[in-house]
């Protein structure tokens, strides 16, 4: 009797709250999207979850990043010591930093998987061109956030990797010198570089990510999930409601990601490294983070001269062109736009995927580093 009365009261409060929100904020259009949205169910559905996992890891990044900000000091003299303080003195500081570092790496991995799965499933077909474009921007922003964050512990590895990375950026024709100076805040990697990398890492790039992510998610919600060409014409189509079915499945995937993240953070905690000595020569075997390694390794393989052109410049321009093609892909993949299969593009994608994996593994096992 008492229980029934309590349930009735709870239900009343819930109803009046929903009524108040609906009357005050006119959320019916959003409610329709959430409640009526269906998510296709097919043999490739598993790839849908990588977008959600990426979002989960990004949220983890934001939360752990804010916590790290309580103690981190972005100056040449204090950066390394502050990270050391976080790792050794702050309660659970080691865990927060390890979660931040590992979620960054996992997020970039899931971004790669999400990008390639979207590519192979041709999910960028009309009308989802802008979803792809915002996704490519998010990919670039994630790489930029990783690059700027890597320097912040101000240890030997990060210092010299940034030195090499900004040096490569300096090879871009015409604007290279300007770009390098902008990135470094001067001629050399210094306190000024640390300051601006910090600002980019915690303010500029996250704001850009929020903007691009907002659009990306809005497009996904408004247009729904794309169906691959191979299952589009199936007669017996299956789908599940976005809310609560798909969302619950998404949360299940998040839990799996959380388990992996916690295991990595506890068993392989982020290392502090060695404090840098800016006057020391570049140590042997300096490499960028793994997600830049395939480009770094490929640049090392390009001959120093290609006809009359500088090999490194040709390589950098090549990567630039690849990035541009990636960005405008939905607009130039004409067969897919017409709903036809594009075997050439699939082959090219497979080749690129193998190339990236081989180059990354080669870069990891290559002891030469920056030569």
């Amino acid at each position, binding site marked *: 009797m008492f229980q029934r009365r309590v349930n009735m009261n709870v239900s009343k409060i819930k109803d009046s709250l929903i009524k108040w929100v609906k009357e005050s904020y006119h959320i019916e259009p959003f409610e329709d999207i959430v409640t009526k949205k269906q998510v296709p169910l097919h043999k490739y559905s598993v790839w849908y979850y990588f977008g959600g996992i990426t979002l989960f890891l990004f949220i983890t990044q934001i939360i752990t990043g804010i916590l790290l900000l309580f103690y981190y000091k972005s100056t040449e003299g204090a950066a390394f010591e502050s990270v050391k303080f976080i790792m050794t003195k702050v309660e659970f500081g080691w865990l927060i930093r390890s979660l931040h570092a590992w979620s960054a790496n996992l997020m970039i991995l899931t971004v790669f998987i999400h990008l390639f799965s979207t590519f192979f499933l041709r999910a960028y077909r009309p009308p989802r061109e802008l979803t792809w474009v915002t996704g490519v921007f998010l990919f670039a922003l994630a790489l930029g956030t990783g690059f700027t964050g890597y320097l912040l512990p101000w240890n030997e590895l990060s210092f010299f990797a940034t030195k090499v990375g900004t040096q490569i950026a300096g090879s871009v024709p015409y604007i290279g010198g300007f770009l390098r100076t902008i990135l470094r805040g001067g001629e050399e990697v210094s306190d000024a570089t640390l300051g601006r990398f910090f600002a980019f890492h915690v303010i500029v790039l996250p704001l850009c990510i929020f903007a691009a992510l907002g659009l990306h998610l809005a497009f996904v919600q408004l247009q729904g999930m794309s169906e691959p060409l191979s299952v589009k014409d199936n007669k017996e189509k299956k789908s599940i409601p976005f809310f609560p079915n798909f969302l*619950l499945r998404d949360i299940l995937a998040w839990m799996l990601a959380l388990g992996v993240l*916690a295991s990595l953070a506890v068993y392989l905690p982020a290392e502090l490294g060695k404090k840098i000595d800016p006057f020391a020569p570049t140590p042997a075997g300096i490499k960028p983070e793994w997600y830049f390694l395939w480009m770094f390794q490929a640049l090392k393989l390009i001959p120093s001269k290609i006809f009359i052109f500088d090999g490194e410049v040709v390589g950098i321009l090549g990567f630039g062109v690849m990035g541009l093609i990636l960005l405008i892909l939905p607009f130039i993949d004409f067969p897919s736009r017409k709903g036809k299969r594009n075997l050439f593009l699939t082959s090219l994608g497979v080749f690129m995927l193998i190339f990236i994996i081989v180059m990354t593994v080669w870069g990891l096992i290559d002891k030469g580093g920056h030569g």
Partner: protein
Amino acid sequence: MDKKSFLKHGFLISGIIFFSYPAFSAETRDTCIECHKALDDKELSAPANFSQDDVHIKIGISCADCHGGDPASDDVSVSMDPAKGFTGKPSKTEIPKFCARCHSNSDYMKRYNPNMPTDQLSKYEVSQHGKLNAQGDKKPAVCTSCHSAHNILAVDNPASPVYVSNVPNTCAKCHADKEYMKEYGIPTNQFDDYKESVHGQALLVKGDRSSPSCKNCHGNHDAGLPRAIYVGNICSQCHALTYDLFSKSPHKPAHDRMGIPECEACHGNHRIMKPSDDMLGTGRDAICVKCHSSSSKGFKTALAIKNSIEELKTDITQAKESTSKAERLGMEVEDAVFDVNEANNSLTKARAYIHSFSREQVGSIVEEGKSLTKKAKELAKKAIDNFNFRRKGYSLAILLIFIFSLALYLRIKMLEKNKGEK
């Protein structure tokens, strides 16, 4: 100037230069070197083959500046004429005074090297070598025995026989030669002993030029046997703290009273080995028991000091094991490692304070070390506990994630079973 006049003046100038050449040349020529170099007898030609690094040649001092004569003349009867100051080769016993003509003349030496001492002869005369030399003994070392007669290299030249790391070998040329030293009745094993010693290893093997060689204890020009009772003053040049402690200890008056050498009594002389803790206490290799009987106060003090040092060593080993364990687990124990290093410094200090022979003084340093090892062990334990806490926390978190995931999975299955897929 016309062409004829130009030729006339040209011939005149050339003629002056040509005919004045022998006179000009005679000033720069050194017939001593020219003639001696050409001699077949190697003993006579060798002195003329000067090294470019010879200290005298470098500053323009030639044969005649030491041996006299006229180096400008090609005629032997003129160039080696005693009337022209030619003295010839000095006998071995004459050499110290021969060199001292310049080297004891401070006015003269200031021209070349104002910082160079000029007391070598006066020191030599009081040295063991000098005393025997004065008695007409030709075997003891004179200047040339160590510095060589010609091709004299600066003392900071690594090729010089008197360069710091070459000194032991230079002394050993005579002092390790049993046959040569036979008549003096002194041992000839000093060099062999020195080579094995901590000092010899540092200087000859590791190249540590701050390590003492023969001259640091025996002197160089005034080389002699240090009086055993003053040995401590020699060692204290480097081992200041230990000697200071010794001087204030009850051992000092006892050694003085009994005429026992100070440092040498325990550490030896040429064969000074790296001291070990076994030298301390009452064990088989302990030195203390050589003088102190088991009923003496010194015996008890030695035992107490030895025990306290051993306790600190045990504590340091345990602290190191704890910190290493924490490090192997991937924990940050920098502060604990620092404390262990500081405890090691305390151990080193305590070992030095053994020379106070005071159990209180050694004990207080040992206590400092022990408090550091205690702190290090606590920090290491905290790190290991923290590691275990992390593992437990991780297990709990994974369990919660699993339970939540299982609940989610069941909820999803239930939802899809109830509503069915479209």
